[in-house]
């Protein structure tokens, strides 16, 4: 009964990621893409909440969007997995449903 949650908005501009993280149920996967990838940065005002999500479930970031914005894996919260577009599709098909937090 797993849900894939996708977030494509900056956590500093909208509360989409914060709200998403508040609604996670067991077996969840969270995928950060487009401006959502800033949620994967270490040392930010929302990083501890993302770290908690990494401990009790799966968190992914779309590598292409991460790289486009000048971010590298050295800046990423430990335990986050990088996927490519094909990996995004795999996640969507593996999970029972997808919830897009806009």
């Amino acid at each position, binding site marked *: 009964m797993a849900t894939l949650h996708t977030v*494509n*908005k*900056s956590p*500093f*501009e909208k509360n989409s990621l914060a709200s998403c993280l508040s609604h996670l149920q067991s077996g969840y996967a969270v995928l950060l893409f*487009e*401006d959502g990838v*800033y949620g994967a*940065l*270490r*040392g*930010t*005002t929302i*990083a501890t909440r993302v770290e908690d999500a990494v401990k009790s479930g799966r968190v992914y970031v779309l*590598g*292409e*969007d991460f*790289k*486009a*914005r*000048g*971010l*590298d894996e050295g*800046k990423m919260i430990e335990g986050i997995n990088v996927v*490519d577009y094909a990996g995004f599709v795999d996640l969507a098909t593996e999970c029972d449903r997808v919830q897009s937090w806009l």
Partner: protein
Amino acid sequence: MSEIKKFMYVNRKAPYGTVYALESLEVVLIGAAFDQDVSLAFLDDGVFQIMKGQDTQGVGMKNFSPTYSALGDYDVTKLYVERESLEERGLTLDDLLPLKYEDEDDDWAEKDSIKLVSREELAGLMEDQDVLLNF
């Protein structure tokens, strides 16, 4: 056309997710032809616009970050970056592009275009402008 006004372009959005950052840069370059006193401010998610190491090959969009390096040649030499916005995002000056200009009043010495300012200082700079354009 003779009176020089102070223009500040206020950048508050991350690049690529929306078109604001690119549009702002294009307006700055067009506006540079009018010989006004121009400055740029980067605050909130706007600080992400001038991150170094941007590589957009995978997303099929144009990487416009190298264009910021050309601003100095258009006499756009004041790029104010808000310190608090960097800190909230876990960033430091080292994460930003090393933007420079050549100072014609100082034997073309190469100088930093980026000026790190506090939120309080930036508020004061905004108060000092004739025209504020937000993106």
